[in-house]
């Protein structure tokens, strides 16, 4: 029990004391996860909406693939991303292995199916005739889709929350692609794992608490926006 309390004390002192290394880890964690979430939203929301709205052959199979992607094991994603980015891999020329850019790529692969799948299901909850009605009012395809997305914006925000949640707490992929290099690719999750392996439970608990706190704050902010909108409606 004592070592847990000690961990809590250390955590607060690291945050309150403005430990430069911890702050750089926090900054990188937020940068990688927010950037990866943003990219996956840019790809996943329109993609999910298109799959929901369009009629095309093998649509059910495509939806099954997206749903499967929502549960991709992060270590497998990490392995794939590492192989892609390795010097002899097809994306080796980018030089992204063991860099934040590589970590963003891995997290985009994890978050995009989550955002796509939830956006798809949000759009499917809207009567398809709503989309057709917008077309008949003179909307182009993208204008009609935008109006539809606005109608289900609360569910789309839930997709964003889920996408962010899937990457901020992810460790396997960023560990394999980033390598947990101090001052370069070390993020909260990889640092927590490392400190635990080294027996520095105080630091591990401290980092874990910071991660938990950050996740809570960001999710609370998004939920607050979502609920404000829900009340307004």
């Amino acid at each position, binding site marked *: 029990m004592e070592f847990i309390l000690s961990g809590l004390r250390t955590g607060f002192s690291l945050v309150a004391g403005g430990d430069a290394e911890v702050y750089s880890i926090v900054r990188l964690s937020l940068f990688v996860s927010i950037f990866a979430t943003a990219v996956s939203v840019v790809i996943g929301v329109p993609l999910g909406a298109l799959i929901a709205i369009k009629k095309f052959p093998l649509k059910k199979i495509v939806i099954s693939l997206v749903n499967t992607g929502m549960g991709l094991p992060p270590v497998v994603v990490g392995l794939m991303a590492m192989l892609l980015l390795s010097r002899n891999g097809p994306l080796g020329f980018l030089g992204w292995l063991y860099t934040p850019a590589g970590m963003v790529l891995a997290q985009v692969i994890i978050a995009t199916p989550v955002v796509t799948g939830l956006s798809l299901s949000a759009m499917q909850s809207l009567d398809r*005739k*709503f989309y057709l009605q917008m*077309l*008949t*009012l003179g909307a182009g395809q993208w204008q009609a889709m935008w109006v539809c997305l*606005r109608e289900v914006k609360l569910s789309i925000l839930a997709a964003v929350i889920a996408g962010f949640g899937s990457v901020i707490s992810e460790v396997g992929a960023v560990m394999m692609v980033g390598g947990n290099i101090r001052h370069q690719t070390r993020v909260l999750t990889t640092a927590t794992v490392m400190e635990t392996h080294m027996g520095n439970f105080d630091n591990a608990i401290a980092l874990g608490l910071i991660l938990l706190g950050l996740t809570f704050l960001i999710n609370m902010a998004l939920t607050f926006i979502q609920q404000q909108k829900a009340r307004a409606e």
Partner: protein
Amino acid sequence: MIKLKNLDFRLPSGFTLGIGSLEIREGEVFAIIGPNGAGKTTLLNIIALLQEAKPGAFELAGRDALLPSGRTALRRSMAYLFSRPYLVNDTVYANIALPLRFRGERDSGRVAEMLEVFKIAHLRDRNAHQLSQGERHRVSLARAFVTRPRLVLLDEPFSSLDARVKEAIIGDLRRITKAAGTTVVLVTQDQEEALALADRLAVLKDGRLLQQGEPQEIFARPVSKEVADFVGVETLINGEVTAKSDNLCSVRVAGGTLEVVSDREIGDKVLLCVRPEAVSISKAAAADSMRNHFRGRIISAEPWGLEYRLSIDCGFNLIAAVTKRSLDEMGLKPGGEVFASFKATAAHLIRR
């Protein structure tokens, strides 16, 4: 305005809509009537370029509508009202301004004009999702007319409204479309609605156009038993033309001989049709100009909207429409004897 020729559309369920030839003229109100599952909405969706039919010809506002390019531009010359008004979760003003926004146009007072025309100015800043069903329909109509469409497509738009609201909205719609010379295509199952609005109509059943023409022509002179059934011709009697003088045919039926004005020929096997409201009922034999008189016994008297339907056994089964007042005044009851008559011009012969 709209010309369709030899178009086929197949749904995944196997249902096929086949349009041989259909022309809707500029400025007319054209109704498409038919039972559920006839393909009415599919036909409207094809006209609205929401579904693609092939391989024939489809001309819309003078342009080839089968070409994949320019669909949005063509859609922008029309408005389509679904049976349920799909309004966005925003103010009434924002909903009505939406088509202008899609076109990148500014509201130069058009929205305010529509709010006045459809009597919803007091709802301008209310959220559309908080409105009553009738108000939602009015917003939907205002939104449809804000761009001054040349063509308006209506898919049973008033089916969920109560009679009073429906009548008021239909009145407004008729006034506005006539004033603007808008072409209207109305899909409905409600014959009264079709009669109230349509200049011409078409009967659709099982994906086939059975008859097109002016309402009076279709209601009085259906070309087949299917059309007759749908447009409310309730007396259908098998018979054979046995004599003809000028255009007056004598038709032998199970209970006697009837006289009908028709261009059928002697020897033709026919189905004789009489609308219920064309049959006159009295308690005594009347001396009038009608060519067909019968004495019969009432089999049943059933309420039918604001009227009653009498089923009379005259050797064949004749259906007549009477008001509640006539029913009471003449004491018409099942088992009672009555005299029924109809004009030779009130009946119609369909070749079997």
